[in-house]
């Protein structure tokens, strides 16, 4: 494991940059626990102060320190993404491994459901959820909904690997030595799909965080918890751009772009690690 990471850092510049950004983000998350102000409190500092030595990223019109809001927002947004990724990975593993191993009717039924979820446009569904839940909409709920929508693509990927694993001799041997299906899937097949699961985690986080930001900016989530999207929501509702409080908008937008590029670089370099053909292409250059 350590050598893999070391080699990736040495030979793959995308991975090195992605890892650096990830470490910075983790640093921000750790830092957020030392915030001098409670996250949801407003008017704790003078409002509308431009960035200076005391307030590194200025203050908002709601009297909050932009820097500390950003740190706490990053923590919540990342936590949200990790939560969705974790739950939806479990779903896609269960569906993908079962469908690939069982085959036949089970496979057809699971994949029919899978493909249906894949093509359904999610944004109107999410808006519909907000519309009927309104104030009952909380973060746990949103994590559950996005997990339920975000597993299908990766389940297909896992299934395609599981299908080839099924025909391998060691699976035969496990069957003949009387292992149960659950045991074969968890102990024999799971380790083979783990690299794919890690790579898809990054893509899933890109997707779920993007949705969170969009919904929050529109005010369709619990807007009292600071997240990246929520910061833009409040900045917009105070017309920060028109009144010249540009740092209030620039800070979250900049952080979001860095966050997404970092996640994307990691997912790209992991795909390359999994698929040796693209490594050959790199050598060809």
């Amino acid at each position, binding site marked *: 494991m350590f050598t893999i990471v070391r080699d990736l850092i040495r030979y793959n510049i995308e991975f090195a940059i992605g890892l650096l950004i990830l470490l910075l983000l983790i640093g921000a998350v750790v830092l957020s626990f030392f915030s001098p102000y409670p996250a949801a409190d407003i008017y704790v500092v003078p409002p509308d102060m431009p960035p200076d030595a005391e307030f590194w990223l200025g203050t908002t019109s709601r009297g909050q320190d932009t820097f500390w809001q950003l740190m706490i927002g990053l923590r919540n947004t990342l936590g949200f993404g990790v939560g969705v990724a974790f739950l939806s990975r479990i779903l896609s593993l269960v569906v993908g491994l079962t469908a690939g191993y069982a085959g036949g009717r089970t496979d057809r039924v699971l994949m029919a459901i899978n493909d249906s979820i894949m093509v359904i446009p999610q944004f109107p569904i999410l808006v519909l959820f907000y519309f009927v839940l309104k104030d009952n909409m909380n973060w746990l709920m949103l994590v559950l909904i996005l997990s339920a929508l975000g597993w299908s693509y990766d389940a297909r990927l896992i299934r395609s690997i599981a299908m080839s694993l099924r025909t391998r001799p060691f699976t035969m041997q496990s069957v003949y030595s009387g292992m149960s299906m659950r045991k074969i899937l968890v102990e024999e097949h799971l380790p083979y799909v783990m690299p794919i699961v890690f790579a898809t985690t990054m893509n899933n986080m890109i997707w779920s965080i993007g949705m969170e930001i969009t919904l929050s900016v529109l005010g369709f989530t619990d807007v009292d918890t600071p997240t990246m999207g929520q910061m833009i929501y409040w900045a917009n509702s105070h017309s920060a751009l028109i009144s010249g409080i540009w740092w209030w908008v620039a800070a979250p*937008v900049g952080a979001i772009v860095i966050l*997404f590029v970092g996640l994307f670089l990691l997912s790209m370099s992991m795909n390359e690690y999994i698929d040796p053909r693209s490594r050959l292409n790199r050598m060809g250059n």
Partner: protein
Amino acid sequence: MTAYLIFVARRFGQLLLVVFLGISATFFITHMTPVDPVAETISVITNFSKADPEAIELMRKTLTELYGLQGNVFEQYISFWSRLLRGDLGPSLSAFPTPVSQIIFRALPWTVGLMISATLISFLIGNALGALAGYYRKSRILKIVSLGLIGLQPIPYYILAFILLILFGFVWPVLPIAGGYEMNADLTLSFSLVLDIIRHSILPALALVLVGAGSWLTGMRALTSNIVTEDYVTFAELGGVGSTRILRSYVVRNALVPQLTGLAMSLGAIFNGTVITEIVFGYPGIGTLLIDAVHAGDYSLVLGLASLSIVGVAIAVFLIDILSPLLDPRIKAE
């Protein structure tokens, strides 16, 4: 040919399943929640005025009927489907008594137009650049352009659109940043109106193209760089076939089929992006309509928009899926 017909029939079955599951999902989302739409609507109506209890009771009865909420869940489910199949989505509340379907069909051309043009442009640009980058792998310009487009690809639609809005609205205001046409435009068909509509669609389309092109580029570049190592391409090169012709008829033609399958698979995401981009630029399509409906508490309009999105995207995916094998003479549709 029979194999193709069987393929189409099976895909049609899948289409029906998607529509059934999607519509059922919207039904159960709206009916399995603690929130009562009738009570919500009444509270919206009576918010700023006093109303007679009898009138409220009458209103409750009418609304229950309009929303198809009489009887138990199973009866409601049946009546929901029968109304939907007749194309009757009920009257809109915020624009009472205009039928929801009429409001949606007024917004639909904007969304469809924006989505089709942006998808076509990003598909063409992304695939063309991807093919070139995969074929001429040493070109530095192509590498830089690819890097730029790939770097934009993970950024959420909302944020990219928002950045464009800031750039072209505040920093360098050259393009209109809101609406689909000038406020006081004369809406009879004329050259200046068409020009105006195109000018207003540049920024929303640009946001969609910038996010979309990168993924086509990556896919096409990988496909192309695999195909150029095939024997028949080497053979054609040795036989003195021009590189433009090799690229066009030997490489791209082969690589395009999986890309079309990719288009069918990502159509739902593209639709999401279009809807979200519309919201940023206040474009008069389905996205803006959806948000307005949510803010106005227009129950039947929100439900109608969600159902229609599912049906529309499912049909579009079905069409791409059944048309793409026709482009590839090798595939006997399976």
